[in-house]
């Protein structure tokens, strides 16, 4: 049964990801990327990571993509000439071949073994009993408190940096 949900979501994620890098109009690329983010959000739900799934839609598909669309429209970038006709072709082909080999190797390596590791205490029954979001919140404010506080400093620096760079 899970495959019936997984297969379409994975197919949509990969198809929209390909569209992001082949479409010529940057607006269409951005909208395809939104599709990828929604499909990934569905995969997170399938993995019982409800909090991450919702945050994915709010932050990526919401905030980040709005920023992208805003900048695309602000800059009026318009259409590009066909992408692969412009670059230095031999190097480009070499790069794509190398990446394809890497992907092939990854798929073979992943497919031929069962990943194992130290199991944590949070079985899905326990997570469902406490609640995914409650558990994430509890961990953020106990075990991961210092990284959490550092995150707020990073965001503050990003705000100040963006103001300094964009204002002139």
């Amino acid at each position, binding site marked *: 049964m899970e495959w019936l949900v997984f297969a379409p979501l994975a197919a949509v994620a990969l198809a929209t990801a390909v569209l992001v890098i082949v479409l010529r109009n940057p607006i269409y690329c951005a909208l395809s990327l939104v599709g990828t983010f929604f499909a990934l959000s569905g995969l997170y739900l399938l993995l019982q990571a409800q909090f991450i799934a919702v*945050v994915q839609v709010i932050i990526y598909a919401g905030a980040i993509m709005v920023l992208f669309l805003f900048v695309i429209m602000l800059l009026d970038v318009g259409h590009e000439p066909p992408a692969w006709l412009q670059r230095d072709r031999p190097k480009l082909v070499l790069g794509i071949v190398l990446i394809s080999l890497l992907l092939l190797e990854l798929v073979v390596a992943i497919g031929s073994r069962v990943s194992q590791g130290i199991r944590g205490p949070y079985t899905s029954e326990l997570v469902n009993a406490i609640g995914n979001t409650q558990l994430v919140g509890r961990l953020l404010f106990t075990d991961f408190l210092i990284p959490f506080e550092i995150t707020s400093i990073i965001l503050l620096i990003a705000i100040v940096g963006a103001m300094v*760079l964009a204002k002139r």
Partner: protein
Amino acid sequence: MTGTVPLNAYLIVSAALFAIGVIGVLIRRNALIIFMAIELMLNAVNLTFVAFSRFLDSMDGQIIVFFVMAVAAAEVVLGLAIIIALYRNKESVNVDELNLLRG
């Protein structure tokens, strides 16, 4: 095709997404779209984290994804600000024309 989806299926999807992102960085020259390809790679890694988190009964992966998202938001804000500043100077976001640092 019955039963639960194994971890390997998620990892393969993630590897494919990452490869698509790398190819995007290689073939495009619009700085904005290169940026989107980088976001694709970040999301591929996030999928790996969440999948391992689920299959190893650990919450650490989900917490780290949360931090990755926060850093990605900061990175996008700064990157887009840099692109706007560059566009002001060069009237272009084509990465081949942006060679101000070349000696």
